[in-house]
């Protein structure tokens, strides 16, 4: 059983580059402003979510372990 993730997109920084939507289309989609939103935090393997966060050109995505609160991205 994979762990539950808490994924947030900071809309002050999201520029709609679509990297996350391309890499994890089961998790992220664009809203009407063409900014990313999370519609299913369990919609892709953890590795794909972390790659999406790393590929965000403005580092707008934050990924945490939903149970422990441990920050998985960005890394300290």
């Amino acid at each position, binding site marked *: 059983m994979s762990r539950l993730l808490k994924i947030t997109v900071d809309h*002050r920084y999201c*520029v*709609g580059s679509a990297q996350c939507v391309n890499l994890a289309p089961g998790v992220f989609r664009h809203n009407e402003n063409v900014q990313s939103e999370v519609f299913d935090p369990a919609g892709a393997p953890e590795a794909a979510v972390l790659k999406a966060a790393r590929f965000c050109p403005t580092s707008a995505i934050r990924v945490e372990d939903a149970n422990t609160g441990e920050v998985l991205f960005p890394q300290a």
Partner: protein
Amino acid sequence: MSHDPDDLFAPEVIADPYGYFGHLRETDPLHWNARSELWIVTRYEDLVWLVRHHELFSSAVIKSDQRPPYPPIDAEDRGLFDEVRHFRSDQLVEQDRPAHTTMREAVHEYFTPTAMESWRPFVRAAVAELLDEVAPKGRMDVLQALAAPLPVRIITHMMGVPSEDRDHLRALADKLLYINRGESYRMKPLMEGIRAMMEYVEPKVGQRAEKPENDFISVLAAAEKNGVFTRHQVLVNTALLLFAGHETTMNLICNGTLALLCHPDQWARLTADPAGTVRVATEEILRYDPPVKSTQRIAAADVERHGKQIRKGDRIRWIMAAANRDPRIFENPDRFDLSRSPNPHVSFGSGIHYCLGATLARVEGQEVFRALAERFPDLWLDTDVLEYQPSIQFRSLKSLPVAWGHGA
């Protein structure tokens, strides 16, 4: 002197794009420029909407636009223009989906914020070395001593080519700078630079395909092996890296230094705590006088906006320099305020073509402004004359003399 209000290359527009495009932003936000036959978009919200709707506004500007170049070029250079078009059509920035998605994915790993941040120590050392050379002189032209050589050093290293080749690459980069300039003879130096760049890179691509290294040419060579890039696309996009990273960084460093020296109160804030303030300060520098003033799209469909009808095939130029000063988004937009935060400037664009090198540009800017503030806190502007290149796209100073210590 031109009196046509649509002359985008008029000396007053080149000298002060903020006045000219700011006026359009407040009076005619979707302006038809009859002289250059294109729409001009100046408001922040319009610009973001346009750039994020890549399905409505194509990036294949060179590929699909059959109109003659503006401003006009020398008649005998028509053949060169076609060659330049063939070259530029293969640039990543000219691609639409689906080609853009796969091509960008192939190079994106190399340019993630995490990957680019790891270049900071190298950038810091390069800045220190360049400033060591000029420090005893007490004066320098920021462009020649710092802003032009720094990005060439970094890109040379990224390309994985020997440092002895720096001068050659800088000479080629200087010729590539004629893209989107106004001189009627510009196709000649531009095509010379393109040809020489292709010749320089070609054998290196072959080597990297055989024996990959940890550099950008190897990334492209691998993408060619995987069928994502053709050989021509590999060569063109290596040249794009040199050009795109050179011109824009030069302008960031010169425009930022100028803005800081023209606002002594803000310069004092930076020198009081360079390491603590430079990140937020660099964002304001990017907003206030961006390296790229404007860029272009071509309508892929009929679109209505502000009660006007954009037709499929129309050219649209969007002015980041005007959107960054939109009072609907930024309080006191003409004020240079190093503590401005949040600062959602559009100097790197937005949407799927958001600048690939944004983090690297930020790192370079931060390291330069920090080093200047730490080493030369009494820096001053050593000229009364400022001249800009006649470009619609780039905000490029021709020189920026400064002095410090006993340099006067």
